């Protein structure tokens, strides 16, 4: 990223880039996938560093961030950013590539079954009352050591689940889901083996990548949930 573009991006993220220049930056970003990636790293890292208050960076920290953004160093702030997560959304495209157009139709038909629209809604049982299982709220949790890499999840199966879930996702998350659905599948098909490799290489949170603390707190251990 050139110094000039970096300054533009920085000003944009600070909400201070004039709209004419923003248009130019936008054009550049839509044209240039590499720049887009840098921009993404910059945006998220900058966010972590600035916090909501917008505190400024120290020079050395800023330099380190810039190096990071240019891909010359490991990401210092967000451990997960260095390792791409196992993305479920890709299989939506991948599956169709694998199974041909029928694959897409399949997904569509599955979704019909999942979300059959107004006519079939009465079939769903709406429950407002909380389910009374007599269970107590858990009192204590322990954080287990990171387990070995989770087993591979079957992409097609997960895709079906995610489609079905998206119907019930509320709030701003729905916009995120749709955006994710729309996004380009830049890296080509990735089913089965590739996904497994990605999982095995520790890209799944909790997989215990050496040296990188899981970004999300490790899962709650079941063993203690029923403790009185």
């Amino acid at each position, binding site marked *: 990223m050139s110094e000039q573009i970096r300054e533009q991006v920085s000003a944009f993220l600070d909400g201070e880039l004039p709209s004419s220049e923003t248009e130019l930056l936008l054009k550049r970003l839509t044209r240039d996938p590499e720049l887009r*990636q840098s921009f993404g790293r910059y945006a998220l890292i900058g966010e972590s560093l600035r916090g*909501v208050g917008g505190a400024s960076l120290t020079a050395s920290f800023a330099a380190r961030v810039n190096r990071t953004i240019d891909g010359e160093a490991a990401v210092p702030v967000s451990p997960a950013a260095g390792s791409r*997560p196992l993305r479920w959304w890709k299989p939506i495209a991948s599956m169709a590539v694998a199974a041909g157009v029928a694959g897409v139709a399949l997904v569509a038909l599955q979704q*019909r079954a999942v979300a059959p629209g107004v006519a079939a809604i009465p079939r769903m049982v709406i429950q407002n009352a909380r*389910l009374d299982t007599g269970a107590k709220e858990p009192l204590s949790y322990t954080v287990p050591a990171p387990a070995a890499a989770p087993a591979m*999840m079957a992409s097609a199966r997960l895709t079906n689940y995610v489609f079905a879930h998206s119907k019930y996702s509320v709030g701003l998350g*729905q916009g995120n889901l749709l955006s*994710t659905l729309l996004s380009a599948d830049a890296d080509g098909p990735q089913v*089965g083996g590739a996904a497994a490799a990605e999982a095995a290489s520790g890209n799944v949170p909790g997989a215990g990548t050496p040296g990188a603390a899981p970004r999300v707190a490790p899962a709650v251990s079941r063993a203690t949930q029923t403790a009185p």
Partner: protein
Amino acid sequence: MRRGSRPRAHWLIPYAAAGVLSLGFAQRSGAADDARAWLEKMNQALATRNYDGTFFHLTEGRVETMRIVHRVKAGRVTERLQSLDGSGREFVRNNDELTCFLPDQHTVLVEPRQDRGPFLGSLPRFGADVDEFYVIQALPASRVLGRPARVIAVNPKDQFRFGYRLWLDENTAMPLKTQLCDAHGQVIEQILFARLEMPETIADADLAPAVRTEGMRWVRQGPTSEPAAAALSAYRASELPPGFHLTVSGAQTLGGASVPAEHLVYSDGLATVSVFVEPDAAAQANAAAAPSAPEPPMEGLARVGSGFAFSTVVQGHQVTAVGEVPAQTVEFIAHSVKSFPSSPH
């Protein structure tokens, strides 16, 4: 006399302190009410205004550029969400019909859509149940796109759910920037507008898909007349993270499986988790579209969009919890699923 008056003055201190405290409290809750009012304004703006904007959707260093066009004309809502990064995919919603143009798949999907929420989403109304698990806060004002913005935080009170930060345009209440954050405030996902116009009128041409649909396969999904699924909902989560409760349960046939899967939806009023329970054989049929050999039961954690999925096997059934929540929440719920005696229908 002087000595006598001093203690009296001291007695006043606690009252004065209490007064200051309650004043502070009143101001705080006033600010929260104000923040709530701004969230309401945002929902209103997203659903009822005309807008045409371009935004970045950022996740984990991945960036997508999208254009959103939203028009309300004579009570009809038309919306278009378009990927600008090469796939050419577009979603167009015409009132309650959603059309997905997938040129990279040479396919157009049309489906009825009973939820009429805007593509960009909106936050549900905050009731008392939500208050129990989230804190709504007004943060110091800031600027986005060169415009003054209100900053509102919806912070989770524990680590079982994610929160939001929103930068709302001071003039229009439109969300110029939104972030999904974990309990530590770490940003997981962000939507950031690069351009946002709110014109009086929007031309039909701006809502027409740019995709050429010649030669594409159209898949239309009407309402179905499938027989009602039998044996509903023998499985339930026996324990839930605080605040989550069952909101929907039903049975659906997923991906070519012969036996319907149970689909349970749990919510805390803001975050949603789906639980799917399938007999293992059905789950394998569901996966049959994948080119690989028959798959073993799924076990473990996977990333999904901005959330997680956790799979496990319970009594020969594949149980998967999915949601835009932290990993521990899906894991907790999936692990607690048990079979309960089926109630008569």
